[in-house]
């Protein structure tokens, strides 16, 4: 199996993700307050990963005509690449916050599902909304609303609360994990149904 080629336009987003996530880790570890120290990096990571996923999804829309199954393979690989780039940071963070290995693996699973869903959103919006300005607003506005509105409304579905809750092994993380796993499953199902027709 050939490893998919990264579009040129995605090199900078991946590099930016890596640098900012590294900076986020150091900031979190230096933070004087224990409560913030335990969640800050995860929140930064969830935010950066969502942005990266939207950009990857959008860039893939313009990456030539490919059959849906091949497109899906590429998106899955780039999503995995984002999670793998954060993996050394997460290993370090686990050691410094004393999180369990189970929590660590669940956090990885959540990050994968979270990235996959927002990659799908980026890809879908790029195919349906032609106006650059409107697409920008819908893409980043939607992501910010999905990230911050549940925090304001105290719904346990925002990545800002779900990822730290998974890290701490708290039961309140389950609905959020379930939603993102469910959404990635639904998107995967929709994609498979389309796999007969070529994609743009």
């Amino acid at each position, binding site marked *: 199996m050939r490893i998919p080629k990264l579009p040129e336009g*995605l*090199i900078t987003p991946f*590099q930016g993700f890596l*640098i900012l996530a590294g900076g986020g880790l150091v900031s979190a570890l230096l933070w004087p307050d224990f*409560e913030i120290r335990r969640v800050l990096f995860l929140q930064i990571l969830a935010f950066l990963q969502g942005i990266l996923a939207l950009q990857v999804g959008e860039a893939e829309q313009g990456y030539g005509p490919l059959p849906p199954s091949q497109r899906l393979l590429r998106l899955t690989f780039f999503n995995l690449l984002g999670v793998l*780039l954060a*993996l050394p940071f997460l*290993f370090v963070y686990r050691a410094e916050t004393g999180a369990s290995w189970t929590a660590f693996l669940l956090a990885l699973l959540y990050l994968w599902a979270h990235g996959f869903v927002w990659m799908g959103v980026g890809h879908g919006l790029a195919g349906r909304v032609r106006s650059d300005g409107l697409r920008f607003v819908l893409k980043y506005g939607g992501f910010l609303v999905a990230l911050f509105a549940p925090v304001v409304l105290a719904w346990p579905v925002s990545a800002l609360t779900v990822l730290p809750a998974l890290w701490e*092994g708290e039961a309140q993380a389950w609905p959020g994990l379930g939603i993102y796993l469910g959404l990635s499953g639904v998107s995967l199902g929709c994609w498979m149904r389309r796999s007969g027709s070529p994609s743009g």
Partner: protein
Amino acid sequence: MILLALLWAFSGLALEIKLELGWAGRPVLGAVNPLWITLTNPEAFLVQGELRVSMEFGSPWRGRGTYTAVMPCAVGPFSQTRLRLPWPVQAGGFLLKAAVFAEERRLGEGELRFVAEPEPLRAGLGPPLAPLDLFLSPAELPPEPLLLSPFAELRVFLPLNPAEEDVVRAWRAFLWGEARLEAEALRAHLAGLRPPAPPWGLLLPGLFLYVMALVWALPGLARGRPGFALVLLLMFSCFALFYSVSREASPKEGRVYIRVERPGFTSFCLELWGIVPWAREEVVLEGWWAELLPAQGWEGRDLRWRLAEGQWATVIPLEPGVPRVLLRLGQGVAPPGEKVPPPAWLRRALLLPWEQASVSRLPLEGVEAYLVRWP
């Protein structure tokens, strides 16, 4: 009648549980009160199970916590068992629940609604020779002096045997006010303890190298040469995994232990444990410990006492960065230590005649431990 008997038989409740809290049924706020639990078995068979007692305390603005005690129990046919537990009463606690379970099947339950006295009681030991709140007979005097903490005054009107005298002296020395404890000063010291810092000399260059190496290697993925980037990623992930595993053994909390003794005056000593965790975990202390709560921030300040093989253990669920201060009046001999001048925070945390006291550092691993002797 037959219907009632049938209902009783099928309800599965074989035990009657009666609760009584506080001396003369008057629990005192902020004190460790005696809790009497009477288990009555009206059946013709032995009932064995696990007794679980619980109480919620606190308020929405202070935060809520739960105290739970778990112990095995057995009641013979047509008989009664009476148990006494030390039970701290905190603001916002007004309902005690107890139930006996056998393999998760409820055998009996009981509850007690109470109103706690805001002020400590004045008690007398012996005949009622003075206008006091209540009088105890020497037979009622508990072997644990902590159960006398609801009293602001304890007047003795008759001669006591040495063991009883010892208990009253322990109350006078550690609970009545001869030595006073400023838990806030101890909490401030605990809050100042830091976790062992990450090995920055290794971590920072490692992270910098990783970020720079991958930033440099990522364009290879766009040129169809992913091998180098993936090898680097694998290599740094292995280093990070090794780092993560090697840091497992680092201490997960800071601990302070203080033991105050009055040799020649009482055989009891005041023991204090201060714990501040860096990660979420559960700590188990041998013996029965009560917590000194701060004015607020009670959320999650749960304690679980469990009795196994005749020994109490206190289970403390810890939240990162939240200092907990626990106390008990124990007995026993401390290991020898090296004499040191009392640290400033210890002088602030313990108010006693320091000019007469001597302080030794106890050799307990991973714990900042002091023995304070005061004649």
